[in-house]
């Protein structure tokens, strides 16, 4: 009886650990490619464009509305203590430390991560990855490294814009709901948000960018079974990326709180 339950669990665990090992190996090779020539600058720039310009509008739109709704909720909450005036402090702190980085990463993870998995997955099932290797190129250096580098560069930049737009969204609501003057709002933001808050928020996104690229590449390269396989890979990429961003966010936050 117990055997019937334990054996499948045992096998699932083994599979997960094996995949983790493979993905880690891929991540290490991909990272190594950043330091070992030849460097594919052009490919990296193209990936940065893919990560960045397509996501910018999406990320900032989400940030704007998140900032606005945060302000609404915060004003409501703070009104119990008659502290509505400090809405700027609360909104900016949560955006810069947490919401900006995580929402941006999840959005980019869904948009770009699935794209990476689909691109590499279809290359895998049509033997283009094999062809690349047969023609003397390394798929790691040509595909994985540029994407990892692009993720690590682009996500922090996107997050900075999201933070700013989100805080701006909060300002609009404060103005309309409470008629808080923008100078007061900006001052309360600037006096609250410290360099460490900013660094801990942005620092996390470097890791999330790395994570998005690695997971997309990993499931892309693992794709088997034709076009349906590509579909499966994109789905599992989005799910895994979102989960791992939220889980690693907890641990990174804890780490930053201990260090700073």
């Amino acid at each position, binding site marked *: 009886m117990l055997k019937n339950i334990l054996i499948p669990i045992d096998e699932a665990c083994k599979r997960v650990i094996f995949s983790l090992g493979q993905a880690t190996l891929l991540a290490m090779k991909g990272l190594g490619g950043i330091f070992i020539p030849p460097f594919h600058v052009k490919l990296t720039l193209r990936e940065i464009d893919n990560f960045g310009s397509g996501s910018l509008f999406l990320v900032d739109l989400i940030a704007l509305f998140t900032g606005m709704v945060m302000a609404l909720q915060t004003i409501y909450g703070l009104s119990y203590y008659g502290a509505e005036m400090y809405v700027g402090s609360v909104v900016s702190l949560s955006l810069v430390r947490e919401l900006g980085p995580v929402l941006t990463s999840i959005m980019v993870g869904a948009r770009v991560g699935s794209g990476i998995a689909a691109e590499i997955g279809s290359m895998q099932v049509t033997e283009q990855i094999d062809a690349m290797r047969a023609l003397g*190129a390394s798929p790691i250096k040509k595909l994985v490294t540029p994407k990892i580098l692009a993720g690590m560069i682009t996500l922090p930049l996107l997050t900075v814009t999201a933070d700013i737009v989100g805080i701006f969204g909060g300002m609009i609501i404060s103005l309309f709901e409470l008629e808080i003057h923008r100078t007061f709002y900006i001052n309360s933001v600037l006096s609250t948000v410290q360099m460490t808050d900013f660094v801990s928020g942005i620092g996390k996104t470097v890791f999330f960018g790395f994570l998005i690229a690695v997971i997309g590449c990993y499931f892309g390269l693992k794709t088997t079974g034709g076009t349906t396989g590509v579909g499966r890979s994109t789905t599992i990429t989005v799910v895994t990326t979102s989960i791992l961003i939220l889980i690693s966010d907890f641990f990174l936050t804890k780490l930053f709180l201990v260090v700073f």
Partner: protein
Amino acid sequence: MRGYETFCMSRIIIEFKDVHKSFNGVVVHNGINLSVREGEIISLLGGSGSGKSVLIKELIGLIQPDKGEIVVLDHAITGMNENALIKLRGHVGMLFQGAALFDSLTVFENIAYPFREHLKLTEKEIRKRVAEKLKLVGLSGIEAKMPAELSGGMKKRVGLARAIATEPEIILYDEPTTGLDPINAQRINELIVELRRKLGITTIVVTHDLHCVKTVSDRIAMLYEGKIVAVGTWQELTKSNIPAVKDFLSGNICV
């Protein structure tokens, strides 16, 4: 067509010694033994899923066997590191089953790819060589096209131009005529023979096309249940009394 005797004299440049391979517990190769001599065209027959593609991928180290040894151009490629393999792959061309053209690149960039990876050539020199290869496969002037704009037969020929770009000593064809109309198939068969005549290139052709087998190959190898069950000329194989070979050659096997 040269007689098989010609090749008995030349040296062995590809050798599989007791190669085993399984995927997730499913045995694909169960002790493959096969030698290929310099300059010969050998056809590899076998049913779908019998591991023909895996066999030629093992040959250039795209897949590592579990056990056994593979010697290519005097190099034992089993256990070779990726950098050494990349060098060796410059001497072996491969035409993939679906041509495997990079669909984000133009025809020109596809054929220029191995030049950029293996050789330090000027842009002008690359242009010249790409045009030369396209001419060889009868597709001059389509440099600017994207792979999506090409027909199946044209894709295969561009894939062929790419495979021979670095003038390899060995070329591997994975089902070069499958899915093509008879005219295109015939053209590919002619190209295979012509390339060997012009360049003396050693050739392995994976195919189901018995006409191609008969007209193109010097020898035929039959892969069945993870082993090479028969090797020989067409005449020898037609006289074989191994049931799998008989069924296959008379078309009684579902491929």
